């Protein structure tokens, strides 16, 4: 057995699992009320207030989880038992810490565990759910609408017409260009690492700093209208208001350059942040986008208190990888052209 795995399992994963089990009452409570999207479990806890009277969401939080967005097709229930969930988490942690096979494409990578980047080495916000999607009830994305299918085909064709993935910097994925990642959203979902957020509140505003890409959403609460429809932004136009203990954030004005799970620029997102315990925010979101899906869908993700500081993820500053990738692609093209020329005119 892999020695490093043993170290991880004995030294890190198990303590993480113990912490993780201690978080269960919150998830269990959600389970007992059945639906999870209701505010029932929030009634047990009243968040402290900021000086200007807002429910206090401030602090550093993480949404790191092994729970997948969509439920696996061979899982039919909404929640695992604690034992099952623990087993699932252990397996996921082991899988993430697994070493790659030399000479394979996944092996061309640094080792996550050497840098503390596998999730089990950091704070986790685990839960008993088998998927983050809570509606539709099967825990899976709804089918694409007819327009959604057409748009998906058009996007694929457009990608193809732009040439290879490394032909131009514009062809590189948004993440590789340090523009946007899934942690930034919206909606904000965990990736493999750097899943930390800081919330600060001021009179009339809530600010959410996302660790990954060091991106900030400053959400006005004064009821101002959204940006004009012709103004489109990577993370949209977002406006917030309080409904009791819950911060509700509506986001529109997105761009079709960013496709969340294949969404369109018409996506309308409603996020709900409710502090359900001293150390837990329940983050829920609903996606409405008839241009993509046949029906709206919703997900729920716990955020757990984490420690700071958050180091600035100044992605552009150190993104040597983008340069190396493009230079590498040009070097390969040059080699290929030279070989082709040699074949044409052998001496």
């Amino acid at each position: 057995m892999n020695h490093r795995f043993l170290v991880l399992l004995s030294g890190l994963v198990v303590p993480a699992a113990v912490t993780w089990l201690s978080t269960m009452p919150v998830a269990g409570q959600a389970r007992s009320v059945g639906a999870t999207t209701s505010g029932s479990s929030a009634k047990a806890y009243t968040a402290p207030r900021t000086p200007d009277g807002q429910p206090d969401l401030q602090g550093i939080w993480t949404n790191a989880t092994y729970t997948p967005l969509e439920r696996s097709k061979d899982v039919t229930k909404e929640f695992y038992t604690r034992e099952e969930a623990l087993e699932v988490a252990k397996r996921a942690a082991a899988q993430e810490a697994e070493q790659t096979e030399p000479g394979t494409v996944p092996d061309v990578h640094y080792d996550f565990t050497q840098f503390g980047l596998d999730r089990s080495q950091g704070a986790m916000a685990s839960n008993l759910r088998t998927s983050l999607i809570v509606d539709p009830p099967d825990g899976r994305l709804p089918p694409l609408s007819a327009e959604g299918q057409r748009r998906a085909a058009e996007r694929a064709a457009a990608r193809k017409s732009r040439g290879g993935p490394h032909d131009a910097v514009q062809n590189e994925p948004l993440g590789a260009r340090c523009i946007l990642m899934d942690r930034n959203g919206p909606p904000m979902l965990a990736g493999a690492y750097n899943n930390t957020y800081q919330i600060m509140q001021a009179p009339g505003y809530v600010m959410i700093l996302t660790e990954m890409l060091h991106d900030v959403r400053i959400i006005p609460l004064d009821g101002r209208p959204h940006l004009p429809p012709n103004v489109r932004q990577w993370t949209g136009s977002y406006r917030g208001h309080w409904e009791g203990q819950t911060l509700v954030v509506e986001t529109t004005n997105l761009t079709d350059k960013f496709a969340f799970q294949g969404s369109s620029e018409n996506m309308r997102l409603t996020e709900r942040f409710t502090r359900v315990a001293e150390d837990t925010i329940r983050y829920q979101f609903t996606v409405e986008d008839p241009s993509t899906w046949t029906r709206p869908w919703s997900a729920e993700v716990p955020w757990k208190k984490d420690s700071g500081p958050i180091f600035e993820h100044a992605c552009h500053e150190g993104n040597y990888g983008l340069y190396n990738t493009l230079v590498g692609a040009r070097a390969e093209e040059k080699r290929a052209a030279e070989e082709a020329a040699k074949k044409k005119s052998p001496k």
Partner: protein
Amino acid sequence: MRMRRAVVGVGIGLLLAAAPVIAHHAFSAEFDINKPFKLRGTLTKWEMINPHSWFHFDVKDETGTVVTWMIEGGSPNQLIKQGVTKHTLAVGTEMVIEGYQAKDGTNKGVGRDLVLADGRRLFLGGEANSSDKKPGGK
């Protein structure tokens, strides 16, 4: 060292595509799978920068000439949270680095494995806060 572990089925259903290695870019596009290397180097600088950290090593080539290699590693954010600083790994630390060289053929590579002179794999993560904190080792 690279033994693979048999995953024992537990009948819970194959959950989780745990998405083991999600980086912010495709490393196989930056580095050449056909150019694996194994180098012995002396650390001269560790850039704890994002999106990925870079180690600088002095490496003696086959003629004895010292050349500089840059080795790409992981985002430092989680390490910084755990108290690791750029001084945690002392300049002058000797390491054996296995990895894959940049596609443009320059002295850059991804550090697939960083092993200390005494044979321990570099492990900067979970034990960073332990009382007997040492640079690397697990």
